[in-house]
């Protein structure tokens, strides 16, 4: 299986976009070597803005750039992008619907060593709550590339969260990505797992394992949290014995909340795999942390069996 680092893919795609479109501008809060905007900076220093460690100013500055016709990408860790800049995103960008892309890097628990202050368990929840905002969670490098290209074409505010680590390719290179569309990536007739981010590959592994026990599990990649095609989600859940959501994020306000809300009143049992209203913490490696927070394929298998 081929692995790609979504940060690297994002940085390379941003550079490619910059070559094609002179209106792309990039803002950074002193994390460019990690978010990989350094690639853009090297080739286009005149369209790159190092804003120092000042996320609030970076975000409103990006709003100003967009008001002169630029497509502005702001970059920081997800926890700061969504947390420290919430009011700037809400007031100056989302109310008027400006063309600013907020990129939350090292999202979820993926910055394993740095602990609770640097791990975002609530970023998509915060961003989904803002009217006019589009919220995206790519599942692999290929989707990260497609999404980055797509959001540059789309006019309006977008929040995209990016994982820190190499992720296995789940999709063929020619996969198209459409904002708002849930993607069926494995057919199944008993249960459906709605997953996003790193949990998509874990859902695929769980479905594989359950197939050996003659349990047929459908897997849906909900990489577009908002907007979301509600009718399509309902169709995908129709006739299932149970529904599982899986996300590297708090179960409050993210995928679990969104799917439960869409499928309310359908009479199908729902179980959530996600972070249960806890902060993250430091660990020596990512896997250890994911186990501690039940963000594993085994947890999805258990959820299918108990839903």
């Amino acid at each position, binding site marked *: 299986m081929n692995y790609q680092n979504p940060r690297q893919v994002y940085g390379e795609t941003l550079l490619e976009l910059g070559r094609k479109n002179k209106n792309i501008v990039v803002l950074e809060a002193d994390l460019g070597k990690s978010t990989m905007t350094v690639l853009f900076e090297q080739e286009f220093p005149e369209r790159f803005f190092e804003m120092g460690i000042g996320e609030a100013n970076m975000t409103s*500055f990006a*709003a100003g*750039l967009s008001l*002169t016709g630029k497509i*502005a990408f702001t970059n920081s860790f997800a926890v700061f992008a969504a947390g420290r800049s919430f009011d*700037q995103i809400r007031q100056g960008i989302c*109310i*008027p619907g400006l063309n600013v892309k907020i990129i939350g890097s090292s999202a979820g628990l993926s910055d394993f060593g740095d602990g609770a202050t640097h791990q975002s368990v609530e970023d998509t929840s915060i961003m989904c709550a803002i009217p006019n905002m589009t919220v995206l969670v790519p599942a692999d490098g290929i989707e990260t590339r497609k999404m980055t290209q797509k959001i540059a074409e789309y006019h309006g505010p977008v929040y995209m969260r990016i994982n820190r680590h190499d992720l296995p390719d789940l999709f063929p290179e020619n996969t198209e990505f459409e904002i708002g569309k849930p993607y069926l990536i494995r057919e199944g007739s008993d249960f459906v797992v709605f997953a996003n981010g790193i949990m998509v590959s874990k859902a695929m592994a769980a479905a594989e394992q359950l197939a050996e026990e003659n349990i047929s599990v459908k897997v849906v990649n909900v990489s577009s949290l908002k907007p979301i095609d509600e009718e399509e989600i309902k169709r995908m859940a129709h006739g299932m014995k149970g529904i599982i959501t899986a996300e590297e994020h708090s179960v409050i306000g993210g995928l679990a909340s969104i799917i439960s809300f869409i499928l309310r009143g359908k009479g199908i049992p729902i179980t959530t795999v996600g972070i249960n209203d806890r902060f993250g913490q430091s660990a020596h490696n990512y896997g250890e942390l994911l186990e501690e927070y039940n963000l594993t394929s085994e947890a999805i298998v258990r959820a299918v069996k108990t839903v």
Partner: protein
Amino acid sequence: MKMTVAELEKMAATLRLNIVKMVGVGQKGHLGGSCSLSEIVSVLYFSKMRHNPDNPKWEDRDRFILSKGHAALIQYAALAELGYFPKEEIYNIKKLGAMLQGHPDMKTTPGIEGNTGSLGQGLSMACGMAAGLKIDKKDSKVYCIIGDGEIAEGQIWEAALSAAWYKLDNLYVFLDCNKLMATGPITDRYDTNPHIDKWKAFGWHVSDIDGHNIKEITEALDEAEKLSDKPKIIIARTVKGRGISFAENVAAFHNGELTKEEYEKACAELEN
């Protein structure tokens, strides 16, 4: 558009009258901090700025961002006089579905360049605009007004650093020093002074004027235009509620109501 000093003074009074009409009777309105800006806004919109009310999105226009967005009344007063929208709209302000919102909204109001009101953010937006215009090698200027209460927001100083670092010499900022915050005198409640030394230390060109003197405002802008490599700030000493005798220097008129008698008195003072 060029006006004489006398004409600009008269325009400032007209703008104040529009403000009073928008506050009306028995409704709250940000009277004080709008009136303190009347001369500055008069000079900007009716003398200095390059803009076209018939084409609000004209590519080569100068930009105006009211970072202290609660003073929206003064900007609406000017835009209405200029014909950016029908003047009758001022009587619909803050009505459900109205064009004129409580704080500036670029989506509803022609001539508004950005959404402000959450204090401290408009200066950063103005910086971004100035930087964007520089990328495009446009000679348009960006004007921004901040308040002496507003500068308690930390983001103002993040913006101040970035404007100097990026040498945004196409950025012209007025600091409206009306000396009153919503709850009382700044020097008693939360002092943001001294102004001159702070902005100099942040790498800005600084001038210090009487913010109600048309000639001083114009000259300060003329002088600032000759300077390059640094953003420019004009510290404007003003009186909150200026032009309305009973509202001058009264914190209660930050966002206050007018009685029928007060409304009539204010109109009479400004019509003379």
